[in-house]
């Protein structure tokens, strides 16, 4: 015989379960909606605030530079003339080297066309100045005063002028790469930042690895990982960028290998790659003027 008293209780349970399910779906949908609205607002606020405050921070930098120029003019004329002569000398050498490089570029393009190879991407530098920093991330990050309106994109390498080895003539070296951009500004992650990853190569052995930022407590160095076991890194060796990612021109110096000790044959049997530490050429804390390599649009 059917128990009529059980039917309403069962209906109540089913309705309660359905209620819970609907509440759950409603709450999930509401959370997704909130997350979507937050993501949309966050990006808008990020671009708006970065571009809104840009002119005011830029005024501060321009004022600093004008004061520095005025202080420079207060120096003796003989000192200024000597500095001018050195700069003229450097400019002449650079102009001559640029002529040779342009000629080589043209020859490279002609040879690639002859061999039927595709056109190689070229990069142009954009000069920028550090606009703002924070003391919490002084070594890891800074913001420059150029952005997407100047053609800068996330992933572009950022270089700084430095002296490499005993060479008296300055060269450029990678100091970081662009993390995000707004209209007028860009956030740069330096070599020491955990957000920094770049494919680099060792000259001679043609081995490549991934350089990751990892600031050591004792010294400021990054880690070069995934080097093949047969590669032969040596202390003092310079590592360079390569063209694997397509975001950076190859051949830019990045840093030097420090204190590399080749692992013993026994321990190497357990490893599938080797790691070494890289010291950047310039301390990110002292960087003021940089250049960003931007890919030329076809």
């Amino acid at each position: 015989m059917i128990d009529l008293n059980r039917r309403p209780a069962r209906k109540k349970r089913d309705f309660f379960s359905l209620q819970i399910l609907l509440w759950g779906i409603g709450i999930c949908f509401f959370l997704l909606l909130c997350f979507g609205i937050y993501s949309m607002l966050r990006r808008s606020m990020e671009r708006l605030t970065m571009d809104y405050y840009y002119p005011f921070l830029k005024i501060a930098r321009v004022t600093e530079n004008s004061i520095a120029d005025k202080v420079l003019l207060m120096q003796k004329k003989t000192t200024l003339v000597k500095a001018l002569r050195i700069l003229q000398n450097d400019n002449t050498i650079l102009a001559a080297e640029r002529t040779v490089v342009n000629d080589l570029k043209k020859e490279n393009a002609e040879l690639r066309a002859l061999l039927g190879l595709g056109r190689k991407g070229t990069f142009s530098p954009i000069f920028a100045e550090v606009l703002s920093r924070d003391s919490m991330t002084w070594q890891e990050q800074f913001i420059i005063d150029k952005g997407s309106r100047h053609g800068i994109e996330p992933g572009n390498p950022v270089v700084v002028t430095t002296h490499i080895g005993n060479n008296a003539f300055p060269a450029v070296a990678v100091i970081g790469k662009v993390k995000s951009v707004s209209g007028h500004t860009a956030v740069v992650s330096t070599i020491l930042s955990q957000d920094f990853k770049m494919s680099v190569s060792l000259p001679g052995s043609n081995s490549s690895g991934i350089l990751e930022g990892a600031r050591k407590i004792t010294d400021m160095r990054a880690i070069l990982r995934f080097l093949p076991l047969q590669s032969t890194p040596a202390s003092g060796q310079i590592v360079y960028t390569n063209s694997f990612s397509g975001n950076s021109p190859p051949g830019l110096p990045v840093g030097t290998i420090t204190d590399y000790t080749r692992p013993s044959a026994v321990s190497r049997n357990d490893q599938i790659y080797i790691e070494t530490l890289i010291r950047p050429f310039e301390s990110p804390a002292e960087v003021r003027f940089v250049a960003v390599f931007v890919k030329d649009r076809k």
Partner: protein
Amino acid sequence: MIKTVYIFLITFFSVLAELLFRNIGLFFPFCGLFIFYVTTAFGVRYGFLAAFLAACPLDFLGNGAAHPWSMISFSAVIGLSCFWLHRVESESLFLHSLPGAAVPGIIWIFSLLFFSESPGMVFLDHFPSFLPACFFSALFLPLEIYFFDTLNERLSLPLYTNAKLDLK
């Protein structure tokens, strides 16, 4: 409407001052102290408005962060302000040196947790600059309260010193 414009303007100047100080490596929480003032004088809603207007530029432009994490530290400052208003009986302006010294601590600890990639190393590097920040904040907050109350009186805006009376 005038309250919103007033808060927007003062927050803008506070953010600019804090960013300029940060650019030369100094830590001074202009925004945190103003949020403390606004929460007591104008209310919690206006406190959160000032916190939002300050957190976005400080984090996106100052730290290059992807999210406005400073909202969390500013929320703690708002909590401190509510606690000070409701629980502390004294109305002495000089006693405000205590929350003035506490605000940099709150902001600095949260910044250390959310922004720095190696908190231990940054703690050792920046602890010597944190103590002067607390000292100067302790001196600055009573002066700030006096200055803004003088300004608010002319603008017919709520005063910090009347906040406790309004509660009663």
